[in-house]
């Protein structure tokens, strides 16, 4: 990596100040994307501002109708947390299936959604559950937060501090793993919030998105098995050596159906 500075401020306010003073500084959370990028010399920030251990970002607590997860919570912590496991079993399972054990003990929820890798798992849960993203400046709806692959609504100097999820008993995340990277070749987070079905798909290649047609189809009470006929736009998918766009679209349909069946208790 290129030569760079590193600081580990004690408070969020200090961290934000450092980031505001230096346009070329970059916040470092779990570093699961940033560190490989630095190692490969694909980025040259002036300094890293380590926010991974800030107390303000490291809480999980029940809130009215749901839970708030601090941005600095690791995947392993989310997966194991009793509050998450009780209120959002599917989210705990998603966190417990990211990468491998080492990654899960480093990578954080805030880092994952701020990076918005088109093959990451978390964005699908945030979008499907209609979670709200708390930053140091504002609260954003999931729909407004994600802005295509590796892009979010975050402004320079703005960082994710927490994510607020509604409790949801009926939800399921299924991932079809890329055989090399183990990222989601396609991942589907399906949920039912009240009478409303929500389906968010990650891994397509252009960033996480909702399959509205399927949601409406299900809201009308249609059978899960009839999903195959519901249109899903090929433009949401791109191809690479691991799978064509057509294949990814097909897999998205298959695992959506399986996720819904699992949700309905028809498949284990």
């Amino acid at each position, binding site marked *: *990596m*290129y*030569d760079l500075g590193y600081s580990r401020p004690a408070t969020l306010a200090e961290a934000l100040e450092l980031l505001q003073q230096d346009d070329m500084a970059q916040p470092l959370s779990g570093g699961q994307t940033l560190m490989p990028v630095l190692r*490969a*010399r694909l980025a040259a920030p002036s300094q890293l501002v380590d926010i991974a251990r800030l107390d303000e970002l490291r809480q999980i607590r029940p809130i009215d109708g749901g839970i708030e997860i601090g941005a600095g919570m690791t995947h392993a912590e989310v997966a194991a947390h009793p509050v998450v496991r009780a209120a959002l079993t599917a989210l705990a399972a998603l966190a417990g299936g990211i990468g491998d054990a080492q990654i899960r003990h480093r990578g954080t929820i805030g880092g994952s959604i701020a990076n918005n890798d088109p093959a990451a798992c978390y964005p699908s849960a945030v979008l499907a559950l209609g979670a709200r993203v708390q930053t140091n400046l504002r609260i954003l709806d999931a729909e407004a937060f994600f802005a295509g692959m590796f892009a979010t609504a975050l402004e320079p100097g703005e960082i994710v501090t927490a994510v607020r999820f509604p409790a949801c008993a009926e939800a399921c995340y299924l991932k*079809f793993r890329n*055989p*090399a*990277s*183990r*990222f989601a070749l396609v991942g589907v987070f399906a949920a039912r919030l009240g009478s409303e079905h929500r389906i968010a798909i990650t891994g397509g290649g252009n960033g996480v998105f909702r399959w509205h047609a399927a949601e409406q189809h299900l809201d009308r009470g249609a059978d899960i098995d009839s999903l195959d006929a519901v249109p899903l736009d090929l433009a949401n998918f791109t191809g690479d*050596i*691991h*799978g*064509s766009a057509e*294949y990814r679209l*097909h*897999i998205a349909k*298959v695992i959506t159906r399986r996720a819904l069946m699992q949700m309905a208790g028809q498949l284990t």
Partner: protein
Amino acid sequence: MNETVSNGKFGQSVKRVEDARLITGRGRFVDDLVFPGQTHAAFVRSPYAHAAIAGIDLESARNMPGVIRIFTGRELADAGLPPLPSGWNLSSVDGTPARVGLHHALAVDAIRFVGEPVALVIAETRDQARDAADAVLVEYQELPTVVDLAAAIADGAPQLHDGIAQNRAFEWEIGGSAEVDAAFAAATRRVTLSLRNNRLIPNAIEPRAINVQWSAFDQAMTIYLTHQNPIGMRGFFAIMLGLPSENNLRVVSPDVGGGFGSKAPAYAEEFAVAFAAKMLDRPVKWTAERSESFLTDAHGRDHLTTAELAMDDDGRFLGLRVHTLANLGAYISTSNALVVSYMYATMLSGQYAIPAIHARVEGVYTNTCPVDAYRGAGRPEAAYLIERLANIAAREIGVDQAEIRRRNFIRQFPYQTPLIYCYDSGDYEGCLDAALGLADYPGFAARKAESQARGKLRGIGLSAYVEACGIGPSKLLASLGGGGAMWESCEIRVQPGGSIEVLTGAHNHGQGHQTVYAQIVSERFGVPMDSINVVQGDTNRIQAGTGTYGSRASVGLSAAVHSCDKIVAKGRAIVAHMLEVDLADVVFADGIYSSAASNRTVTFVEMAQAAHGAASFPTDQIEPGLVATSFFDPPNFTYPAGVHVCEVEIDPETGVVEVVAFNAADDFGNVANPLIVEGQVHGGVTQGIAQALWENALYDPDNAQLMTASYMDYGMPRADSLPEFGLCFWPSPTPVNPLGMKGCGEAGAIGAPPAVINAVCDALGMDHIDMPASPEKIWQLCRTREVS
């Protein structure tokens, strides 16, 4: 499966003595070494796959902080560094030698694959070297590229090397063409097969590394090198560097973190670094980054093959005709001419009595990383072909895949194949039955029905492989074009206090030599294992040797046995004097010398003390001291064999192939340490399954960029993708060495790929599918099947 012990005899599962040190981070690897005045190297590498070098501007890079010197290929060549040496002289069928494209350590006029080194930066720190390498400006004139084997030999294909038309390095043949023609004329049934054996990237856990010290005063160099054959490398480096003799060079390979063959070649980067150290008179270190490993560690496999098998109506094999295009990459790597010829085509008889075989192998240059030995080195390619053909033959004849093999098994040993080699021993049908038993073959139909009820397709695949290990004798290999001897040496030094040093030219890079050598010497001398120290990997300590590759443990251990025998025999002579009895009356068992003619006994350690004390025997008849050296040149190869049975379940909706069961019965001859051997099989089978399902080095056909240059895109196997393996040994001890051992290191990677693909084809009811059986490929096939 085996009860483990910490001290034991040949054949027992002794726990590896090296593990505690290695898994607690106490290993010492080349990159751990830092010398006074240490400098660091970084390579400027070509981003293009084929280009002429029009100019190199070093100006700004030279002025970067910490830069000591920057070398170009032209400079090294002018200073006397010759092109890389060849390790094997292969001749074409017309008698002409292979057309060798010169391979400079640093490219001189042209580069021929992505990542080929163009310049070498030496700086005070690693980061400074890397920064300066980024600042070197190379002017490339891009040339058209070729990746595909068939395209490379077509008229008008981009040509890699001047004077080598159609990129053809050699056209080599083996076997009887006329006999095969006659067999086909007489045959009533035949099957054909075209396949690609996919290119693999080795991925040793420790990347390549070298640290070179040069002393100008006494013209002496010490090279610390992560390598499978440090002693062999001494000769190569001495010649390349123009040193007065081998005495001026010491090569040390400390702990080596895996190789799989990829640490056996003589590499361009290492020569450049050593030459630079000599010119600078300061130590120079280079450790490859993982991306450099992907781009430049010698790759494996990459064949395009067509084959025809002639049979009678009962499916008896009558003749085999094989034509293979072997992708050499941009240059012929050290051993690759051997790998694609005498380690591949000679093995095409498989476990079967095939009266007539003919194979033609054409070596072809392409704009890709050079290919060389990789776990199995030619033998997996042969086994994959013949074992795929066997299953296609079974379908053609309409018999079970086990039955077609029974009808064709070799049953008498030794067995002279039509392809030079003579199999030593075996019990192929016994092995088959053992494997089928492990796999509950008769129960497969019920399991298939159960899968079907869940919407899954289940398939079972057999492979009955035979391979060749413990290469030798030297005379045979020399007659085939070999550039080096094939014996191994072992020196045993018994110290005055009774502790023992075992010095071997074999080199451990994961095989557990420290344990197995100690195990064998411990048993022979009747002393505890912890009194034995196994020394290897340092040419200042080891007189001679040929390294570790091709499962050569049997060769090195045989030398150890012979040295043990010499020590024990000398001990008898000494003890005869100590006990004042006739030599013929002295016996040695379980560490005790005794004689029926005396009440006294002498332990091995007491004998050793006496040997050094030199007071209890006449030194004009018996020399003092206790050292023995042996060289073992094997009279023949050994031929390990086995039957692997793979069971897969395919999800037709996604195309995912899951290996749900894998069972293997292997004949490794006598097994020194079952625990270690099972580990070797686990690793080998895992790599074999990975080749069949996930691993695939892909170059962009348009520009020859490596598209699988990181773990994001290159599919490595993981433990959670594998079933529990069921293993058993079915030994037919070999007569060619005193231990009856055959070797086990590569067997898994040889037996597994055809077993997996045979299972996939069985599940889908089809003749052939190329590796890797990736989900989308399988999904497309399932979809087509549904439509039809």
